[in-house]
């Protein structure tokens, strides 16, 4: 055999630098100067502002066009119907530059994927060439959970790597352990977490590789849907790729290079400026609580246990505009699918910043520079092993960042930016299904994602929140159409409406939450598995602001062997509202689907599922301060009942038959509200008294054993030394106190 002569190549980046050298140069310049790429000045932006805007518009237009193109090719309703995807541009060394609208939680994560290639010397070991397509969905490398699949395309100009274009799509079936195969809870090691693409070359010459296609076909339940997503991604990234080349042709390579660096530095400065302008320096605190009930799950016996974990957050806004999130005191990771790797936590932070500060289209690496996430090692949010599954990492991330936005909202409020408050976004109790579909296809799996894509919003600082129209992980939530979703699962919606009285009360109320009632249809084999996206369970998060009330709890109930068919045959009422199944339907067995549980039996035609998806987000301000006119409007719109108007809002009202609308009795309302306030004073106890009582319980360890174990986990010195010190100070506990 003829020996091959390896020729040592120069680096593929500008000036012959290798990717690693370029990455190190970027990091060094930032560290030495404090400015991204050492840019104390922004010459292109300052001296040629019009050219700067021209390049921005050019690239941004390409990103938008690309996103639309992907929607038209994809088979997944997650892309076409609710646009769960994103296209973005990165510098050669992996820093996020610009992105389309969509699931912007992934903007920063794409950066970590490119860094992985850099630090693992893909340049030489794997080869990075024009037309190569890389794929990645391994959260140990970068990413939230395996369902989020990245496709990456390098952009070369005259032989030099000048940028990366990425696209990320969430897949509703990823070959994980069933049922469902997307976000399973009976999943305690990464090996059952789904199909993995470990930052690999999956295509060349702008086409998918045949060997990759075969791997997909052999390992997924729905390979065609997955492959069409890859083709959708390819259509998108190639569009942007070509447009970058065109932009360089027009403006020149130097100006392009200058632009992608200046736009990052500009975003860094904007982030600092916005924080300084809108917030007050100081510390706001909140705590995430995760409950994991795994004892009865069909998982490996040595992973069967219940546990509760907290992740405290100190959100520190520094005078220099930097935001620090310190999670000292976070509890230990566990053998379950709700752990998050630091990249996932970074993703959550980056989308939260878009929601609250950086919504001008230039959220990028620069936005993240003036932030710091302090995640103690060996915890739920920074595990020490890569062997963990992360299918349900959103369980932690959604609620954590909902609470983070709650902290930021308090600071915005202090500065007078009440209109910017969006507070905590609640949580969801979702589910996935597996078995056989209505077309007889088996194995089958699907993630019930419609309600995931759009939850009730928390009350805002100056108005009520819209119904079913807010989401932490995207700024563009949408529930999609029943007539599209039902094509993908063997269920009939008997109802998809807003839950009665689900708006969390306050001076401004939250939006209403969605619920669904489903009849299993055209299958005799369907198993339901919970997806615990931060539903409220037993411990309520602090979701309300300034005296607002919490809302409903989320739940999913399963009803087996019902008489629904008889009811239909006899044209008797069938359930279309929450709790109506109990009143109207006979059934053999009713089961409450635990947030981390599975159905105990297979479901079949005529069985019913009642899903109150969304855990109430918080209200804002005291309901007794709500303008009675708003209460009247809610009555007219059937958002609340007259009982709630009276009991919660202290509003006396009556129905005007002639005008066909509700009227407020202003005098009686004033008196009733006065009466309620006096009753509150009578009911209350002094804080000191409450504190003494609770302190005694702590000293006596008069708390459930799960909580004792939770405190033990958080107070371990390597996880929460500072946190535990402050805990002891607050409760005036002896220095040597331990759990």
């Amino acid at each position, binding site marked *: 055999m003829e020996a091959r002569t390896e020729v040592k190549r120069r680096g593929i980046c500008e000036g012959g630098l290798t990717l690693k050298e370029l990455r190190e140069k970027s990091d060094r310049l930032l560290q030495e100067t404090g400015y991204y790429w050492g840019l104390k000045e922004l010459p292109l932006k300052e001296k040629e502002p019009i050219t700067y805007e021209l390049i921005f518009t050019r690239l941004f237009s390409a990103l938008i066009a690309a996103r639309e193109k992907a929607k*038209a090719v994809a088979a997944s309703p997650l892309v076409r119907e609710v646009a769960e995807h994103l296209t973005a541009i990165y510098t050669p060394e992996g820093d996020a530059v610009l992105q389309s609208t969509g699931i912007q939680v992934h903007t920063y994560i794409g950066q970590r994927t490119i860094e992985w290639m850099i630090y693992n010397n893909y340049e030489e070991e794997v080869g990075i060439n024009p037309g190569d397509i890389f794929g990645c969905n391994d959260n140990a490398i970068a990413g939230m959970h395996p369902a989020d699949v990245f496709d990456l395309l390098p952009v070369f100009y005259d032989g030099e790597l000048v940028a990366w274009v990425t696209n990320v799509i969430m897949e509703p079936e990823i070959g994980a352990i069933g049922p469902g195969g997307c976000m399973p809870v009976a999943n305690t090691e990464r090996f059952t977490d789904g199909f993995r693409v470990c930052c690999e070359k999956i295509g060349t010459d702008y086409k998918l590789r045949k060997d990759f296609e075969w791997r997909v076909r052999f390992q997924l339940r729905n390979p065609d849907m997955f492959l069409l997503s890859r083709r959708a991604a390819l259509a998108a990234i190639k569009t942007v790729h070509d447009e970058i080349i065109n932009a360089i042709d027009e403006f020149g390579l130097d100006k392009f290079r200058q632009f992608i660096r200046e736009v990052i530095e500009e975003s860094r400065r904007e982030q600092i400026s916005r924080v300084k302008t809108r917030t007050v320096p100081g510390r706001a605190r909140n705590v995430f609580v995760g409950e994991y009930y795994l004892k009865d799950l069909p998982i490996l016996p040595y992973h069967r246990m219940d546990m509760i974990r907290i992740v405290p957050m100190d959100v520190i806004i520094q005078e220099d505009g930097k935001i620090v999130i310190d999670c000292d005191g976070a509890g230990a990771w566990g053998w379950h699918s709700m752990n998050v790797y630091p990249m996932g936590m970074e993703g959550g932070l980056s989308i939260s910043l878009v929601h609250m500060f950086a919504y001008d289209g230039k959220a990028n690496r620069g936005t993240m520079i003036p932030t710091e996430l302090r995640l103690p090692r060996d915890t739920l949010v920074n595990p020490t092993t890569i062997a963990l599954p992360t299918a349900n990492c959103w369980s932690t991330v959604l609620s954590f960042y909902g609470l983070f936005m709650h902290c930021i909202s308090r600071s915005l409020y202090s500065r007078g930016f009440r209109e910017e408050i969006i507070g905590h976004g609640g949580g969801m109790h979702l589910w996935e299904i597996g078995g056989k579909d209505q077309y007889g296809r088996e194995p089958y799996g699907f993630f019930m994602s419609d309600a995931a894509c759009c939850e009730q919003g928390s009350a805002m600082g100056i108005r009520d929140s819209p119904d079913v129209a807010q989401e932490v992980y995207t700024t563009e939530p949408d529930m999609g159409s029943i007539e599209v979703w039902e094509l993908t699962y063997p269920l009939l919606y008997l109802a998809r409406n807003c839950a009665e009285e689900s708006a969390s009360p306050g001076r401004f109320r939250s939006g209403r939450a969605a619920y669904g009632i489903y009849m299993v249809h055209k299958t005799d084999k369907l198993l339901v598995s919970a997806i615990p996206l931060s539903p409220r369970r037993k411990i309520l998060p602090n979701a309300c602001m300034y005296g607002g009330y919490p809302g409903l709890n989320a739940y999913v109930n399963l009803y087996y062997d019902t008489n629904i068919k008889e009811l239909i045959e006899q044209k008797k009422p069938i359930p279309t509202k929450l709790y109506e199944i109990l009143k109207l339907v006979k059934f053999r067995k009713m089961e409450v689907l635990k947030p981390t549980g599975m159905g105990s039996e297979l479901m079949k035609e005529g069985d019913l599922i009642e899903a109150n998806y969304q855990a109430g987000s918080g209200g804002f301000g005291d309901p007794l301060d709500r303008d009675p006119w708003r209460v009247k409007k809610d009555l007219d719109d059937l958002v609340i009942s007259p009982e709630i108007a009276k009991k919660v809002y202290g509003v006396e009202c009556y129905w005007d038959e002639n005008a066909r609308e509700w009227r407020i009795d202003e005098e009686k309302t004033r008196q009733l509200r006065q009466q309620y306030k006096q009753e509150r004073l009578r009911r209350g106890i002094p804080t000191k008294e409450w504190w003494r009582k609770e302190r005694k319980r702590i000293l006596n360890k008069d708390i459930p054993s799960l909580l004792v174990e939770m405190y033990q986990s958080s107070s371990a010195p390597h996880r929460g030394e500072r946190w535990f010190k402050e805990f002891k100070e607050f409760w005036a506990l002896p220095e040597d106190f331990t759990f």
Partner: protein
Amino acid sequence: MRKVTCVASDAGGTMTDMFFVDEEGNFVIGKASTTPRDEFIGFWESMKDAAEQWGIDLEKESQKVLPSVEVISYAGTTMMNVLLTRLGDKIGLIVTKGQEDHLMHGRGRQSYAGYSYDDRLHTASHIHEPPLVPRRLVKGVTERVNMFGEIVIPLYEDEARQVVEELLEENVNSIAVSFLYSYLNPENERRMREIAQEVMKGRDREVPILLSSEISPIMREGSRINAVTLQAYGAEPVRKQLLSMEKRLRERGYKYPLQILLSTGGIARITYPRLIEAFFSGPIGGMMGARAISQTVGIPNLVCTDLGGTSFDVGLIIGGEYFYLREVEMGRMLFNIPTVWMDSIGGGTGEYIRIDPVTKRLIVGPESAGAEPGPVCYNMGNTIPTVMDCMLIMGWLNPNYYLGGKLPLHTKLAYDAIKEKLADPLGLDPYEVAEGAVNILSNRTREEVRTRLFARGLSPADFHLLIYGGAGPLLMAEISRGLPFKGIFTVWWAAAFSAFGVAGMDHIHRYNRSTSIYVPHGAGPEEKMRAGEILNEIWEDLEKIANKDLDEEGIPKDQRKFQQVAYLRYFLQLDDVETPSPVNRIKSPEEWDGLINSFEEIYSNVFGEGAKQPEAGYQILEAGLIATAPRVKPALRKRPVSGESPPQKAYKGRRRVFYHGEWHDAKIWEMELLEPGNVVEGMAIIEQPATTLVVPPDRKVRVDEWGFLWMYER
């Protein structure tokens, strides 16, 4: 007296444009303010203005002039006001039980629909518009059709009677009905109507019942509920206005039915049942005009751009035809109404210019000064500079010839505002800032054009660029700069181009029907023929319906043309591609393959070869028919070509014009006095009362034999 044969209008938010065509195809344009309270007043004023151009006093001579008019057609954006202002009718809505909150929660997408990019990302700004129907007047009835079109739950007739009683008790003026999957199986909806009619008979009170399966038989229940609701809420009241307009025209001598422009690109009588299609027809008149030019002059591929004071619209004509969308976003709601595709983007010359307090970036738009208060130079109270103010101080616009001099423009006010609000804070020269703002707008419009092409995998090198709208010719050179179009042109009637389009309309009706066809990869001849037979049957049925409609409209059989279409996708995909069938019936497996080849050719042109997935098999969920017939229209005629030098009478003098950072001594020309063959070298301004064409130093403009103004590099 000149014989007027065709009258077409385009009623915008501020102006109603009119287009008169005589029997020889000559045409003139008229303009008058739109009068939203009684549209006929503005409509009639605009007709009088057009007639005046031909020396006709329509007020006195209408009984002599209007009897010869074969068609008067109406198009306009003002119908949208019913939706935007929520001033529609009191109606009731009946939906499948369990969906009663749909209009309240809409879709999440509707909470940011129509927003600028910044606001889409800015969660705190998201909000639902008030529902068209109060929640109390939305009723649910138990029934259910499944995803295969099978009735799983029959209509609960007692409930149906009960809700009709309740709605009649509330004195609703009509009732809209939309059930899940009624587009696949309308049986329950139809039975609902029968029951409602029985109830009404019993109460001796009748209101119209509208079914979503008849108004908008297309997948996606939310958009279908919206469509049938808007038909009941808005279209029926608008129909009353149109009938009143028709009556008054008849009183003045017009003999035929008033016609309206539909979003599908056709025209129809105002008694047309799906009048909702007329709501979205506002911006597409121009597309009709572009198509007429494309087909008459023989320019198959056109990028059409319409730039006005508040918006910039972009559409494509390929092979002489335009595209359709089957779901549109209007008034921050989604509707599944087939609509000629034309993207409307904020980006007009009325856009405000500001400096971002944090980033110090120059921000152009998205808000516009509109007609009231208008730009600073209108002197109607606005003090925030707009792009039009910039164009005025740069000498692009003639302060004494705007709308033919009817509206004087105040250059000093504009200059002072630009200096104080923009230039001084940035430490720049006012003219430099003015040009920067104009460049940002022109760049944005150019990128919109580029995006539309790139998103479909198309290249400007295969297209001509047609620019119209009152402000279009101002940015003609800039919109096209750097894009290698085959040619760039505008017309002297650019400011009333949409009305021209309406005047040039053919009869076009589109008919669609849902189906379910799946042909796997590598299917044998039998499977292909089975699929072909299903299509043939649908096409035959649709042709019968089309012939019935065209019979009623008195269209001779020999003038009718039918194009059979299928909506093809790879199995599992959620979007499809409208594919014209190469044959009118599929009679062999090879002809099926021909249809598939047409689909794959269109698909790979748009999405690239790498996006094809034939292994998944092919699916058709909808088939359709496009029925067309010709109609009287304005004639585009060639005129003899004279020399390159424009006649002296067209020359209006000189003006200082700022362009590319320099002042130029520009020649000024009167647009309508230029003759075919004339060439105008830049730097020059070619003016017309309603539009202005800027010819930069590196460009020249030539008038061709059709009277079109073509821009070339010098």
